[in-house]
């Protein structure tokens, strides 16, 4: 685990200074607490086949959570506890065996915001799943919720998306999209029409789907790109 500006009380990580972090999550459950008025960007990787992360966001804290994984079962709980807290959650996964993500987002204060972008490319024959729940209880006003869930199937694998928004206030702004499909036939045709072989087209489109939303440094970008290339072979 690489941390700067940290106060680490395992399994709880308390972040109180603005910075970028890299976190390798193993089998132990990890709890991340963001101090009030703190913003931070975290890149979460995995060292085991499953991960369990809980995130608590205090007043006016802003959390950018990004993750690029391969064949991992993840459970992420996000508690927007303080007024004005916000999370931008980008989760990308390459799947070749059964795996999935379960995200639960709890808006517990007013003016909180969650933007969830999940993308899986399933190269395998088994099930890849996304389960995304977000809730806004009575009394939490002016919340903003966005969910975008995508699974692309390359072979005979399956995909399942279970998106749920439970909103008990009238003035929330919510957006939702979910789709399971193969790569667009038109895009495949367009790329191949320029001489690019099918395998290389899959690589380009997978990369765009999984890395297009991510904001990471060149070193990680190269690392993730290599993972995609390896999977394609």
């Amino acid at each position, binding site marked *: 685990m690489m941390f700067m500006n940290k106060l680490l009380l395992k399994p709880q990580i308390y972040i109180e200074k603005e910075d970028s972090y890299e976190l390798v999550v193993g089998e132990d459950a990890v709890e991340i607490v963001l101090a009030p008025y703190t913003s931070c960007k975290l890149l979460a990787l995995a060292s085991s086949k499953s991960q369990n992360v809980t995130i608590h966001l205090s007043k006016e804290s802003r959390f950018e959570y990004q993750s690029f994984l391969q064949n991992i079962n993840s459970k992420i709980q996000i508690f927007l506890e303080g007024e004005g807290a916000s999370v931008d959650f980008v989760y990308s996964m390459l799947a070749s065996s059964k795996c999935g993500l379960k995200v639960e987002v709890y808006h517990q204060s007013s003016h909180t915001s969650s933007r969830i972008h999940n993308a899986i490319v399933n190269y395998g024959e088994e099930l890849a799943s996304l389960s995304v729940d977000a809730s806004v209880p009575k009394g939490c006003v002016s919340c903003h919720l966005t969910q975008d869930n995508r699974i692309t199937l390359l072979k005979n694998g399956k995909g399942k998306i279970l998106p749920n928004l439970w909103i008990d206030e009238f003035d929330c702004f919510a957006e939702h999209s979910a789709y399971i499909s193969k790569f667009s036939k038109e895009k495949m*045709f367009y790329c191949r029409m320029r001489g690019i*072989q*099918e395998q*290389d087209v899959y690589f380009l489109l997978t990369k*765009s789907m999984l890395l*297009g939303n991510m904001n990471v440094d060149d070193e990680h970008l190269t690392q993730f790109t290599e993972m995609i290339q390896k999977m394609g072979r």
Partner: protein
Amino acid sequence: MKMLEIKELKVRSKDGKDILKDFSLLIKKGEVHAIMGPNGTGKSTLSKVIMGSDDYEVIHGDILYNGTSILNLPVDERARQGIFLVNQNPVSIEGVTNSEFLKTALSSVRGENVGLYEFMKLMENAMGDLKMREDMMHRSINQDFSGGERKKNEILQMKILKPKLVILDELDSGLDVDSLKIVCENVRQYLEENPETSLLIITHYSRILEYIKPQYVHVMKDGKIVQTSDMSLALEIEKNGYDGVNSMSGNDVYE
């Protein structure tokens, strides 16, 4: 020397509709042909079938490219052999940059990895010719591009990939007068620099043919060529419309 020979082609769409009916056409190396016709006659279908789209089924006939049938070749192989289609409505692909896409395509066409320096120089020159902004190199393919920018991007790809047979499908749609002039000048320049390259222009209007003069103009109706002549035919269509084609005289069916 024959470049493209289409013999008695019959093509059916997936929903069972016959679109091309005994369509024949011969294009020799270095020739410029134009196919004109009203909507729904099968012009765009023809371009996609030449390119290898599996949206259509060839139920009779053959397409020969440099003397060899290409019907069984996949799309990308046809492209690597030098066939290039400028799309009427190029798709946008979010997250794949123009430069990454084109470098991958160029490496595929050449069969070897293209060096970054050489590629950047090629791009800079071609983009300069087309008066394209430099930042478009790093933008996602056709994402948020205007109609004119999309068409310029298609011509940029042509200039980089250096195909031998270019099919322009409605190049002039979505282009303003200035942009049309720029892209047509670039196509013309490309033909001058590559005299063995053949060009097939598919269009409704004769406007584009004023910039790129074809040696042959064909009129297509109901899935086949009904009339062939030179540029005068395009001008007559402009004057009388397609309905007047049957009543025109002095033009033979092209064989």
